């Protein structure tokens, strides 16, 4: 009897030991885990670093403008797109006084940004005061799927304040062909 009780006890103990192994049942989907405090603290630090880098980037942009492109010689040329246009832009080239100053091939992401109303600064540089000639050409695909190339020229006068020129590619309604509108801004 004693040995039987001992055996029973042993079996109970054995089962008690073994059973926890099999006690793992897949729980219901747990709640989102609490982030470790250290990660949350680092979130704050990362934010601070980003802020620092942002400030430095801003100072750098400002320095670049003041140092390399002082106002009395500064000229910026921007390219914009008529919104909802289905003209597919591929590239643009700029010449000032017959010298190529800028060329750019557009990615689909950039074209998308233009079509949503963004404006691309194609050229930031320096020209002397006086009269100059700007020649721009764009290459792309029109609404009919055919390649197009459009050129435009502008004679402008550079004075002391910075010069801003916007080249706006528009779609001519009648023939769904691209054309330019050139604006000078102050």
């Amino acid at each position, binding site marked *: 009897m004693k040995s039987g009780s001992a055996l029973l006890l042993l079996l109970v103990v054995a089962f008690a030991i073994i059973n926890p192994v099999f006690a793992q049942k897949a729980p219901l989907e747990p709640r989102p885990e609490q982030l470790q405090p250290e990660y949350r603290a680092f979130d704050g630090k990362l934010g601070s670093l*980003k802020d620092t*880098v942002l*400030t430095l980037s801003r*100072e750098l942009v400002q*320095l670049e403008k003041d140092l390399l492109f002082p106002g009395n010689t500064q000229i910026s040329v921007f390219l914009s797109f008529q919104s909802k246009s289905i003209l597919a832009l591929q590239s643009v080239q700029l010449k000032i006084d017959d010298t190529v100053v800028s060329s750019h091939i557009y990615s689909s992401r950039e074209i998308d940004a233009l079509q*949503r109303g963004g404006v*691309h600064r194609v050229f930031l540089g320096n020209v002397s005061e006086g009269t100059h000639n700007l020649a721009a050409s764009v290459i792309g695909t029109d609404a009919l799927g055919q390649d197009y190339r459009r050129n435009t020229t502008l004679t402008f006068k550079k004075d002391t304040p910075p010069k801003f020129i916007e080249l706006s590619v528009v779609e001519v309604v009648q023939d769904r062909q691209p054309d330019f509108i050139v604006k000078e*801004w102050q």
Partner: protein
Amino acid sequence: MCPNRIKLVYFLVTFLLPAISSGDGDVTLDAHDLYFREVLYYLYQQQYQTALTHLEVIKQETKSGQLDRDGEIIAGELNLSYGLLNKAENIFEKLLRTPGPPEIPDETWLELAKVYYAQNSIEKSAYALSHIHKPFTGTQREDYEQLNINLHIDQDRQLTNSNKFNQGTAADTRQYYSQYNLGTGLIRNNHINEGIKILDEIGAPVTDHDLLSDEIKSLKDKANTTLGFYYLDIHNPQKAVSYFEKVRLNGAYTNKALLGMGWSLAELGNLKDALAPWVELQKGDISDTAVQESLLTVPYALNGLKAQHQAMEQYNDAIGRYKKEIQSLQSKIDVIQRNGWISSNDGSHPDKHLITYQDIRDEVLDNPYLDSLATDNDFLRAVDHYNELNILKQTLLDAQWNIGVYHLHLANKQHLLIEQAPNILRNNYARSADSSKILEQLKTELTRIANTEDALALMTEKEQSQLRVLKLVNDNIADLSRLFNLGRLDDKLRIYHGIILWDITMEYDSRLKNAQQTLAGLESKIAGLSQQRNDIKNFRQENLGDTDKFDRQIALLQEKVDTALNEIDSDITIQTSKLTAYVVAVLKAQQSHLTANLGYAYTAIAQLYEVAYITGLKEDKQ
């Protein structure tokens, strides 16, 4: 940035452009309009840092240093997208304190609520969500509903009113997930029947099952597995079996379902039937915890069926497999601890600095024990931190390079101003003086010629040469006549002389005019030299002081960039160590689990021996 956020920005911009304040007229409206649209150009490409940089420059250039309300909303959105939550919060709080049109859009509140939730700021998330007034559509509606459910669960709020949530037709993947979370949320909130009903609906077979995506099929398996284990937990094995039976045999939840099925059958007292799924499970990859458990459940069942010998064999086999796996894990841990997880991760791409989700998936493929990492918030957050630090580092390295360019430019400018300009001025003075001298001489001579009508003074070199020849002949005419029969040479000489003089005389007016034009040209050249001199002097005057200022600015900027880089480098090292430690911890946890199972196997064998010994003793006695 989600498309809806971009749509919001686009919507704002179309009403924004006419309303931009330029401060106190310091920079004109038009130029700012272009600058602002340039910000949008980068925003739409999700280049948030570039967009924010340009926006900050615009802000700085306005006299007041402020943007108007629309601009502030854009700034808030950009800061939020870039991860500057505190800044975004401050902007939105400021906008809330000064109510007025336009209001912070509902879409912005939703994005803010999602960010807060991801940061585990539950109260703030609920606060942001409470500002939403209009119903959303499409993915935003699903986001809103999902977030609402999660917040209710986390805040232990009542989820009783099922009409509050759109249970929908569970027609697409997001709705399935949404329903699943709702179901589990209800169960956790003690609305068991409602929760089970939803999970049951998700897991129910459909006629067009084959047409469902793998993701939905997997979620159905998940729902059925969850319900199966729920019923197993509450000791309703019959019901549990009915759910486990619905789980596919080739899915992500197959192993768990096989394990659960075995336990359900065991609980029903049917150890023999329980063996079938467990034996099937044993064939799986030992990295799966269900498979690990099956190495113990099979002998457990065999023991229950009085097949102690086979049970013993199975336990020994389990011990062998556990030991092998523990050793394999240790080797992996050693490699990672020696080389770091990131280095060992991208050994084939030493220049790669960012860890993508695909990298993690690839790592999991190589090492299934790390499967949990792909969904571990802490780990993924640490990876994000690592990646963001590297992006910041690259930005600063680019800045360093640019500063080098500016430094060179400034050095060239200084060289021009301090060394070259004086030389140029000296040359200019010298040329001016020479030219002035020549000018005076020419003026005097031309005045004399004009006054005396001295045409001969304007003859060409050819004419001079011709006259000299004629004079030479004339001087030697006597000798020449004696030697040659030249006829009336003297007459001929007079005629030639006359023709030349006649030409000179006829050309006098035009030549005088040309000479005067040459004089004017020289005067113009001298004026040009004078202008150049003034330009150089002005340039020096304007820029000499500036170069020092720029020197200081560049030096200061360089210092700040270097400091920031050092800090970031240090943080990258820390993050790298953290990631390595995290991965090692996961592997060590797996190792511990295997070691525990190993212990159980040994214990079980010891128990079997003991039982056999006692049984043997008993038989001997009999």
